């Protein structure tokens, strides 16, 4: 604790050039859509509890296997839906980190607007 590194910018040691965070907006808004990310876990966790049987077969596929296959197809669709609803994705923002809430501060860089707005939903 005797001395402190004084002149270390946020780039940290030995990394020069344009900073990857430059121009990225911050989001502080609530992101309720993230709760949807629990859907895949729920689907798979339910599999051995409610679907642990062979009948009824769907298109010849035993029910348990069909359930897992369906979960594997539904999950990325749910994550896709999250991206549509998530302001952080729509603005291309950095992830808000509670451990750094004080340090993140206001971001003048945000004025430049999102680099990659991605999609018409924004």
């Amino acid at each position, binding site marked *: *604790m*005797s001395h*402190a*590194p*004084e*002149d*270390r*910018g*946020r*780039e*940290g*040691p*030995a990394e020069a050039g344009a*900073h*990857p*965070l430059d121009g*990225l907006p911050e989001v502080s808004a609530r992101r309720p859509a*993230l709760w949807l*990310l*629990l859907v*895949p*876990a729920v689907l*798979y*966790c339910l*599999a*051995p*509890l409610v679907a*642990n*049987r*062979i009948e009824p*077969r769907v298109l*010849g*596929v*035993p029910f*348990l*296997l069909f359930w*897992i296959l369906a*979960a*594997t*197809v539904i*999950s*990325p669709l749910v*994550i896709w839906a999250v*991206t549509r609803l998530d302001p*952080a*994705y729509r603005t*291309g*923002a*950095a*992830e808000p*980190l*509670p*451990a*750094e*809430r*004080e*340090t993140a*501060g206001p971001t003048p*860089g945000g004025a430049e607007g999102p680099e990659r707005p*991605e999609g018409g939903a924004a």
Partner: protein
Amino acid sequence: MSSSAAIATTIFGLAMVVTILIGVLSARGRDKGLSEWSVSSRGLGVLFIWLLMAGETYTSFSFLGTAGWSYSFGVPILYLVAYLTVGFAVAYVVGPAIWTYASRHGLISIADMAEHRFRSRPVGILVAVIATVFLVPYIQVQIQGMGVVVNAMTYGSVDLRVAAVISFVVAEVFILVSGLRGSAWVSALKDVLVIAAVVFLAVYVPMHYLDGFGDFMHRMVAEKPEWLTFPGHESGGRDAMWFISTLLLNAVTITIFPTTVAGYLSARNPNALRRNAVLLPWYQLLLFVPMMIGATALFVMPALGNPDLALFSLVTDSLPAPAVAIIGVAGALSAIVPMSVFMLAIGTLWGRTLLGGGNGADPRSRRTGRMPADDVRTKRLSQLVCLIAGLIALAGALFYPNTLVQLSVLSYEGVAQLVPTVLLALFWRRMSKAGAVSGLLAGLAVVVALWATGNDPWHGVNGGIIGLAVNLAVTAAVTFARPAAAGPPGARPAPRTEGNDPAPAATEEAK
């Protein structure tokens, strides 16, 4: 050597040469610094992140173990698809979170992040050492997997040990020269071959051995129903509880695996990671194919000595040599790509945090400020460790093929204990260094004790999740009992004047 073996061996040799060329050439004209080597200068877009991370998830285990488990146990193997897919949902938040923290402070590994978060190099060193202990066996598993694949695809003409040495040399050459970018490019070749091979097999195998997919399912239901519901066939207690606890533990753990984090940190922006959380799960559909082939082998070769060879036994049995060779090359690259990223990750963990003097966030460490000259030295150290880690794994594969592999069973459970220190710490501002360290050690002790006494899984519950529960409880208890002496960045409302907390002020100025 039969003519089939000669053809297969030639194709394999050519493929290895092409692999080295792609890997080595990928770094041409790139920066020579540590952050290029470790995290591709944080410059990869959606496509390369996808290639790289798909490459990491589809390992030689996918060809060997997946078919083998399906053959031996049946449905318990579905945990693999389950945890990977759930893991991508978790990664939608965790990936950008880790990217944001690491990019903001110029960090390159989970040890680097822990050191910065707790302002303590010893914490970083602890994370690096623990991660290494659980990763080196993983490299060995890949080297041995490569040996098995190459031996099978060349009809036994290339010895297991020779194949192990070849895989080590190929992976080391391009990873030492090109770093993570080399792995991403080799992954492109690998993913093309894997997708082609697996889609082909999905159609061909049930047609060749049975009357198509419908007949396969019909015969499974009629003759092998035990394989189709939990707990599967003689699976040693892999029941519903095991499935759920393992999938939840692994889904969270895979998001902080040092290799996954290398992928996160190489992203150009957080949306490249969020978009990949949508795209990568589709790749996991390919995992159902080796499962189906493993189950098909039940009807064709009911008495396989080594179940891991279920897929390759059918392939060599039914296809001409060139096709066998191409599928074999896909399998071999599925060992080489993850192996190279694992070796790189260990090099990165050690290079800066342990050997390179840390990142300067620890007020007690001597290294401060930016030192470009040091960057090259740190990279050299990282490359050296990358080589040594590979050599240890190779020696293990050649001389003690079973000793280290036992440890790899614990890989996920061990790395899971790093979740509070590395990940939760980013979201929980008050978490103290003492809490993190004591929780980590307590969790590890529980995991090792359960495993050593044969109690893992404990009444069906994955030992790692019990360890993690203890870990979290201890972390919380210690954090609340002993509030942080030196808090995380911005732990207190007005930290600007504090000498030992320079990052916040610097952040403001740099903007």
